[in-house]
């Protein structure tokens, strides 16, 4: 049995239930307390059957962040998901969706007609991302502009690799501007394991993480830090790898947003502020970034980088949650969650969010442009329209 800390500490206060985004929109969902610590306690005493709806948890981990006694609620629910009795059809789908590194290698697969995915349980409604415009070879792509400068690795997550080369280019340009050489990691398409963990395929998550860890470890010796573009992958590398898989990296893992805040000088922000604004800027820190670091980092960055300052998009989870929204049984919950974002926007503007899947989901449901803050900053600096 996996070792946890505070697995038995639940005092039944139900604060996690009030923090759960799914519980808010889904009457059927029993909530994190019932699915996590309550079930896990019975499981330790022999319960082998999963509760209904356990798979409807998005693994956003906002419950864990809210818990006053540090119960690893979402991770207990992930253990619980392993006992869910799914049809072979959905098992196959989940297996595919929890290996985004494969899709990142062949992103054009998403161009196939959606109806082909329906028999497999893939949502016909949820918007799929667009593959990166040109096929770029990320292998060995590194910059050595600053010969005596410091080098950081950019962790190229599966979504960025397959569908969001713009964000990668923008982040590279900004880090260079801040005086860093960059190197893209890992060279081949590897997943951190977050997708598998979220679906309760914990063994698969661990195997995936170990492979990626080996691939990263080979390249970290010269690095100052590993900068991440996606909050979920960030939290997985930084927190879950050491805590649950015993995998450590010799360099710190830092979200791009936090890295820029720590390393940019005032003139960088002054220049950004001097550019014309493009409507209201809404920030949406993804759930995992909220759970790990709070909403303040993204907000502060945009606050320093824009004249008029951002507004926090007053929603908890947008419903994208990695591969969650792409599963047909979750379509409605994902749309209900995202719909709250549309209602939270009262003036036209743009949404800045630190996850690619959240961005496409929010863009579809709100109708407003949603991008990674790196892309927004870079377009401001180069005076190009981010809408292009």
């Amino acid at each position, binding site marked *: 049995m996996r070792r946890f800390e505070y697995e*038995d*500490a639940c*005092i*039944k206060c139900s604060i996690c239930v009030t923090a759960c985004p799914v519980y808010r929109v889904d009457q059927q969902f029993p909530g994190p307390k019932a699915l996590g610590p309550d079930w896990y*306690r019975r499981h330790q*005493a*022999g319960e082998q059957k999963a509760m209904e709806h356990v798979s409807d948890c998005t693994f956003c981990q906002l419950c864990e962040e809210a818990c006053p006694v540090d119960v690893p609620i979402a991770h207990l629910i992930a253990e619980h998901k392993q006992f869910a009795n799914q049809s072979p059809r959905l098992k196959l789908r989940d297996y595919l969706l929890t290996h985004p590194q494969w899709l990142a290698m062949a992103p054009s697969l998403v161009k196939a007609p959606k109806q082909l995915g329906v028999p497999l349980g893939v949502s016909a409604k949820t918007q799929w991302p667009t593959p990166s415009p040109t096929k770029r070879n990320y292998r060995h792509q590194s910059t050595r502009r600053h010969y005596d400068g410091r080098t950081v690795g950019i962790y190229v997550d599966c979504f960025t690799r397959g569908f969001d080369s713009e964000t990668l280019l923008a982040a590279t340009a900004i880090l260079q501007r801040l005086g860093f050489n960059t190197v893209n990691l890992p060279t081949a398409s590897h997943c951190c394991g977050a997708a598998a963990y979220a679906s309760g395929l914990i063994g698969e998550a661990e195997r995936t993480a170990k492979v990626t860890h080996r691939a990263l470890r080979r390249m970290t010796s010269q690095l100052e830090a590993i900068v991440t573009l996606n909050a979920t992958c960030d939290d997985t590398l930084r927190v879950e790898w050491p805590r649950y898989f015993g995998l450590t990296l010799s360099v710190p893992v830092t979200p791009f947003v936090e890295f820029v805040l720590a390393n940019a000088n005032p003139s960088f922000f002054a220049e950004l502020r001097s550019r014309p604004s493009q409507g209201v800027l809404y920030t949406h820190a993804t759930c995992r970034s909220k759970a790990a670091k709070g909403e303040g980092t993204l907000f502060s960055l945009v606050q320093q980088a824009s004249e008029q300052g951002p507004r926090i998009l007053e929603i908890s989870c947008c419903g994208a949650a990695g591969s969650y929204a792409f599963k047909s049984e979750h379509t409605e919950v994902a749309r209900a969650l995202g719909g709250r974002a549309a209602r939270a926007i009262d003036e036209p503007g743009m949404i800045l969010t630190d996850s690619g899947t959240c961005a496409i989901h929010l863009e579809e449901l709100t109708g407003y442009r949603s991008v990674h803050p790196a892309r927004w900053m870079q377009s401001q600096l180069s005076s190009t329209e981010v809408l292009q």
Partner: protein
Amino acid sequence: MRVVVIGAGATGLGVAWDLTLRGIDVTVVEARELGAGTSGRFHGLLHSGGRYLVTDPSAAKECYSENMLLRRIACDAVVATGGYFVKKFGDDSTFESRWLSQAEELGVPTHPVKVAELVDELPMLTRDIQRAHWVPDGVLEGFTMLSMLVQAIESRGSRLFDHTKAIRLRLDGDRVSGVEVEGVGGYRVLECDAVVNTAGPWAGIVARDWGLDIKVQPSYGLMLIFANRRMNKVVNRLKPPGDGDIFVPHREVVILGTTDVAQGLPDAPEPRRAEAIRLMELGAELVPDLGSWRVLRGFTGVRPLYEPSGVTGDSRTVSRDFAVLDHGETDGLNGAFSVLGGKWTTFRLMGEALGERLAKALNVDSPSLSREVAIERRHVRSVPSAPKARGALLCECEQVYEADLDESTATSQMQRRFDTWFAMGPCQGTFCAHRVLGRERAVGFADELSSLRREREHGLNAVGWGASARLIALEQSIAAQSLGEDAR
């Protein structure tokens, strides 16, 4: 033939069952609740005898044979977990060899287990284990067993009066003719041919009312309940029985026992924090990481030890064996009997022994059948396939639905708690007690709620560190807001 049994603990019900099976009409009177004394306050170990092999061989032998018997006749209350005796490096090797030869001699089966396999199965155990032996320990679930016994005697025409106190004996010359009782049914006289004192720690007090002097030595033990079932085998330390050397998995929890402190009074004292901490330290000798386990509550139980020769200083040395006294023989009070001492595991044997003695004294020629007749479980809480049909979920920790309370045949709130197990889980009644008691809005429910909450709080206060400290804060603020009780 009519017999009155005083005390509805394991001893009293064991006696009542054996007598009922002999065709005797039995009335059990209980001053408080079913299992309100020792039988509701223990770790529920079904002894293999391993614990007493060296120090108390006759108790060990009885434990083993009753263990095997109960597995057959009361299987609904038995969980045959199995158990281990572990010897740490530095523990006395001569004790181990004596233990093994005693096991051989008394016929208690043991077999050695590889330490590597043991720590693989129970990774929370210390790595400091030199040798380990398997024994057929198990768990005999307290309230399940007691309510099965009540159902069994009632289905055969005998009965239990709870909240009924025996106040006086009625005599016909030197022979018992009845018992005067007072309780929920008012004052009445239960006419009978014999009376049996099975009052456990209170047996001395009952005997005093009869004008007799019995040397009962109550000794209390503290036990700690951990919130989750972190291990599913009984684990004992292989050395002379001492404090904090046994872990028993019980339903969703694990119980660590116990201390042994001689005391004058029969009532269980409030658990104390300092003693709980000491028990944690002792338990950590077997489970080094014990400090990270959340303790749900501490509780004490009183052993009704009996020392015929009078009170000794050290209660650990008093035999766990039991005694049947026929006061007609010893004190000239014909028809009066006492069953003293003994163990949870041997309750049936105690009933049988009393039955033999009583049958002989009163010329009853029916033999004991309690060895053969299975005790059935009538009311089984079914795991609901469609929870919605069972009404609202009132106790989230132990999954008690409205229907479970409606189906319970318990007559008092406390009995219903033991029947359904609400307020026994991690919230300790902080939430569910309000839902359950508030649902009926019976007269005086606020007082009942308040006293239940306070009772739970005593157990929490003894272990008020870590998550429990936070639960206490939460529990007190809810009490302050809902019951108007100031934080204590």
